[in-house]
């Protein structure tokens, strides 16, 4: 299928999210986001596919290249980061596709689209940090890869992929903000579907946790840096023993 693989996963996730929306809006629960432009959900699906692909491939990257790890020396970070890199290439194909379809998806062409760069940068940062940690952990504990599969399967419900925060109640929203991916995904949606400037808070009309706050984005960035630094430390400290255990 070649490069179509790069499109398949985001398309499936997008299809699922449209289905969920249709079902919810028929029930009349969520009038707010039913008429929303498709660009936001499409980018969310695209970002989620990137995260899932990266984590799946990087977690097993060290063990899958056992021949290299146990026979020759090179910085072992290359393997999980290359798995993320391969996903970046795939995702660029998907992004080009979305941009081509932007007029159909109702993209808001404003200067606020510049927010896409820090948002995507943060997405890569968070994913790389996790990938480094998970790939090293999977050498020592072989069941990590199963846990990752479980986590990404259920993670889709703990991350605003299939829905927007504005379709959730206040408690669910507050919990959702604890997820470091939430600001990235919501940011992508607000910027492309609504043309919002992410520097300003969007309060919820009914009160409670806001629909958007720039502080969450900052918190997520700090978290991303800490995860990457911590993972790199963990990786460094344990890379000596990869060849022995692998």
């Amino acid at each position: 299928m070649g490069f179509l693989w790069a499109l398949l996963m985001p398309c499936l996730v997008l299809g699922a999210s449209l289905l969920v929306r249709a079902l919810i809006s028929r029930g009349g629960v969520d009038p707010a986001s039913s008429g929303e432009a498709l660009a936001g959900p499409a980018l969310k699906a695209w970002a989620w596919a990137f995260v899932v692909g990266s984590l799946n491939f990087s977690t097993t990257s060290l063990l899958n290249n056992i021949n290299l790890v146990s026979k020759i020396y090179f910085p072992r970070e290359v393997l999980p980061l290359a798995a993320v890199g391969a996903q970046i290439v795939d995702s660029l194909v998907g992004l080009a596709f979305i941009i081509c379809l932007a007029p159909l998806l109702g993209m808001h062409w404003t200067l606020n689209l510049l927010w896409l760069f820090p948002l995507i940068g943060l997405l890569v940062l968070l994913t790389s940090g996790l990938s480094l940690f998970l790939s090293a952990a999977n050498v020592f504990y072989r069941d990590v890869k199963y846990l990752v599969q479980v986590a990404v399967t259920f993670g889709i419900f703990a991350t605003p992929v299939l829905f927007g925060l504005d379709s959730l109640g206040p408690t669910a929203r507050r919990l959702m903000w604890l997820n470091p991916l939430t600001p990235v995904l919501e940011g992508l949606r607000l910027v492309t579907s609504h043309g919002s400037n992410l520097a300003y808070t969007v309060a919820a009309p009914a009160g409670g946790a806001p629909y958007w706050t720039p502080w969450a984005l900052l918190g997520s960035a700090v978290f991303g840096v800490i995860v990457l630094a911590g993972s790199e430390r963990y990786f460094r400290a344990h890379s000596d023993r990869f060849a022995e255990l692998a």
Partner: protein
Amino acid sequence: MTDECRVRFDGVWKKFRKGSGYDSLRDLIPSLVKSTIRPKPSELGVNDFWALRDVSFEVGTGHALGIIGRNGAGKSTTLKILTKVLAPTLGHYSTKGRVGSLIEVAAGFHPDLTGRENVFLQAAILGLPKSKVESAFDAIVDFAGVEAFIDTPVKRYSSGMNARLGFSIAAHMDPDVLIIDEVLSVGDGAFQAKCIERMRAFKAAGVAIVFVSHNMQAISDLCDTAIHLDGEVICEGPAGEVIGAFLTSMEGSAQTATGNLASLSVEALALEDGSPARVVTPGQVLTQRLSFTTAEALADCSLSLVVIRSTDGLAVHDSSFQMNELGWDSLRPGITYHVTAKLAAHLLRGQYHFQWHLIHSPTNRWLAVLNPAAMFRVDEYRSYGGVVDLELAITGQAE
């Protein structure tokens, strides 16, 4: 060319774990409790063992070090530490310059990539610029002799092809240090010879070589010094001596072997003046006294001597002597027979040993075997290879 140290191994210890250990999160929790009483690096846990104990050596430019030892003696572990694949538990090591290596026969190939792609992958890992690899590419493929399959994934290669390509890459990366593990065990004769030749050329060009092999002849051909490793350094020194000592220790257990029907024993191999023969010059006369007894009366027995080059098992002499020539038509129990064997060692440089057989000729059965019955080294500095000293003499005149 200055003789600087390229490879240094300084008091290296390496600990491994026996058994499978815990390697799933399921087993993590019980192990966390145990890890609070984890031993210090210098101590052994219940399941730990030392694969290397205080191993030290140095290799300078233009020198070749051979590492020999039984299986599981830590040879590959040593090489893996040298190539940074493993980290030592204690101690230090260092290598200077670019290291070309071939560990455990199959080099670090990615099985799904083709031979061509793997050449470039290896070069990239060694930090060689692409232009340089491109210029050396034809030579690499040509040396390995895998032209026809260079665009086939290496997972479909035979183990010989794998080793050939691996060695060829390591040998064309312009290394300062060459670390080669057992490449000769899978290559065919022609390729082995090519490898040895190539390594000799490297040595002459000042490359430091660390070479592991079970082929003692190859080690003694190539290496100046050798170490016998068995977890720790058992013996080190000139390659010939270390090999001799190693082979003695390997075969020492067979020395007492006797049959049920007869027993055979020897005195030490001696020179004509009665002094023990350990190091011999070509043509020197060696004597050995034997005695044997039998458990029952046996007619038509013979005694045979095999002289074997220890490094490769080549039998350089094999002949038997009928007992009735001594007037002993039948050996009788209760009598000890003494014989003295005398021969001239027309042999060239190498390590040799004796094997004695007492044979019952009618049934062609070995009554007793003594192996090795004697070990000695022939020392001379005229020959480059070969086995037999044919006492070449050249006369000439100029007009």
